């Protein structure tokens, strides 16, 4: 286990390096420098500025400086927002994204697993059809269609919720975005949980448990739940990655001041350093999440021996 964990941790390093390097080179290949503005800067000032930001050095040295500052947790300065570093912008936006994204992921695990259990135990019941329906809707209607529909229903017709925006973690502004993200994730988790629990319930050791006369609750919660949860754990990694995508869309739909909005605005303003910094940050988060899920999987599943 420990050697597997060690190797798995080591494997994340080339991934991160690859992403950072490719992004950095792409950024470097675009024409125009940070000080090419309409206002002409005198040559001496330009030289000083370039020396300060190491822009006068060869590319590989600049790259090493960039890696060094990344290791120190410094994502650089924003191209467009004067006097703002990427770190400052992230510090403002991250809590919003964490609250919405993390909160809805937790919520959807509980709700999705719960619905999946009920659907598997009562096949062809209303809950079962509901889970299948949510699954179908979630896969056919993209978040940027469901989101506006939610706004239309709850904000415009029923007037029970604000249509978007953010007011310092006030719950009413968080409900719709979280509902949207949770809905999308439930469609995956619910389906996976339903399928895997049905499979487990059909296996031999459950038949034995039934033959012994164990009550259904014991069979489900003591014997079936753990093996049935394994596929759910294994989809959590990809799900977290796709949640990042849907979170970007969600923040855009509800105009939330989170990381997604920041990166979309940065892209629209061609704020190269901001976009690069955010991509690096989120990639690190995603890779670490994937790592944790893989380790959890190895820890939970005794069949896996590395």
């Amino acid at each position, binding site marked *: 286990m420990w050697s597997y964990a060690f190797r798995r941790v080591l*494997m*994340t390093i*080339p*991934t991160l390096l*690859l*992403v950072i390097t490719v*992004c950095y080179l*792409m*950024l470097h*290949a*675009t024409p125009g420098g940070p000080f090419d503005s309409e206002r002409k800067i005198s040559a001496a000032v330009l030289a000083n500025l370039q020396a300060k930001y190491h822009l006068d050095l060869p590319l590989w040295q600049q790259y090493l400086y960039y890696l060094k500052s990344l290791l120190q947790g410094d994502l650089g300065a924003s191209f467009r927002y004067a006097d703002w570093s990427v770190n400052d912008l992230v510090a403002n936006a991250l809590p919003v994204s964490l609250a919405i994204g993390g909160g809805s992921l937790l919520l959807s695990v509980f709700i999705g697993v719960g619905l999946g259990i009920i659907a598997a135990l009562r096949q062809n019941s209303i809950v079962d059809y509901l889970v299948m329906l949510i699954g179908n809707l979630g*896969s*056919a*209607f*993209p978040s*940027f*269609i469901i*989101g*506006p529909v939610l*706004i*239309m229903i709850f904000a*415009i017709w029923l007037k029970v919720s604000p249509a978007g925006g953010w007011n310092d973690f006030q719950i009413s502004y968080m409900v719709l975005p979280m509902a949207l993200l949770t809905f999308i994730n439930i469609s995956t988790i619910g389906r996976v949980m339903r399928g895997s629990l049905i499979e487990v319930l059909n296996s031999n050791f459950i038949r034995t448990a039934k033959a012994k006369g164990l009550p259904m609750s014991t069979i489900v919660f003591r014997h079936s739940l753990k093996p049935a949860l394994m596929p759910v754990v294994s989809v959590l990694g*990809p799900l977290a*990655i796709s949640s*990042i*995508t849907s979170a*970007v*869309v969600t923040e*855009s*739909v509800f105009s939330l001041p989170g990381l997604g909005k920041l*990166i*979309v605005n*940065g*892209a*629209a303003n*061609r704020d*190269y350093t901001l*976009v*690069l910094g*955010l*991509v690096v940050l*989120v*990639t690190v988060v*995603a*890779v670490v999440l*994937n790592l944790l899920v893989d380790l959890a999987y190895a820890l939970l599943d005794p069949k896996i021996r590395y």
Partner: protein
Amino acid sequence: MLRSKQKAAAEAIAANVSALPVDGRSPWRDARERFLRNKAAVVSLVILALITLACIFGPMLLSHSYEDTDWEAMSLAPTMLNGHYFGTDELGRDLLVRCLIGGRISLMVGLLATIASVTIGIVWGATAGFLGGKVDTLMMRIVDMMYAVPYLLIAILMVTLLGREFYLVVLTITVFSWMDMARVVRGQTLSIKSKEYIEAARAIGVSTSSIIFRHVVPNLLGIVVIYTTVTVPGVILTESVLSFLGLGVQEPMTSWGVLIEDGTGVMETTPWILLFPAAMLSITLYCANYIGDGMRDALDPKDR
């Protein structure tokens, strides 16, 4: 003597076989019949074909252009009068034509990015599967890496840096859509490689190239077709997300994602501007998913 006897026997068998009513059933014919029996998939195919035809020929037949403003009809609700069947947007442009033109772009991006990513995926997966060993490990590690990366963000970065030309959007989407195919093709290649009939073919001295083209490729084809149909909706969806975020094709050119984004801004007063492109995209995705399911059932009989 012996040889002539064998020859006679072979001729007798051949004569008998040719005397039987010929009813060869190729696996492809089987698959086609299974697919045609699947009502949902066939209906989806017809609807998707209609949408595609409408997107290709509709703009030529309708009297309005996708970029001209009708000053007398801004934000007009759907009407049978003056030919604005889907109404107009807030700039007075005919929504039906815009939906169809947007569909052209979305479907075209879908088609091109699918072809490109499927090609890369097949070559990558087949190479890894055939060569095996260290090359295989390395190539599949790269696929794993690509999976771990939040692709939308890298796509945003690429679009920011490279620009928003049509072919760059296709390229950006392709870069993150080939891995599923590569994985599947590699797995299939590995399993085919170790099958007895390949061993038999080798034992009787069939050349490597004919083993590949007569025995391996036809067996890969089924799974390639399945995953191609599965790739299409994913690619169209990615294009729509990029367009929705304002990072796809640029005005006055449009795509379904752009139209949905436009509609979202004004849905309170003129909901149809959101409704029509959203419906067209959803129907397309839904149909593509059903066709994918139908293909899977038709071509992978074990899976039923």
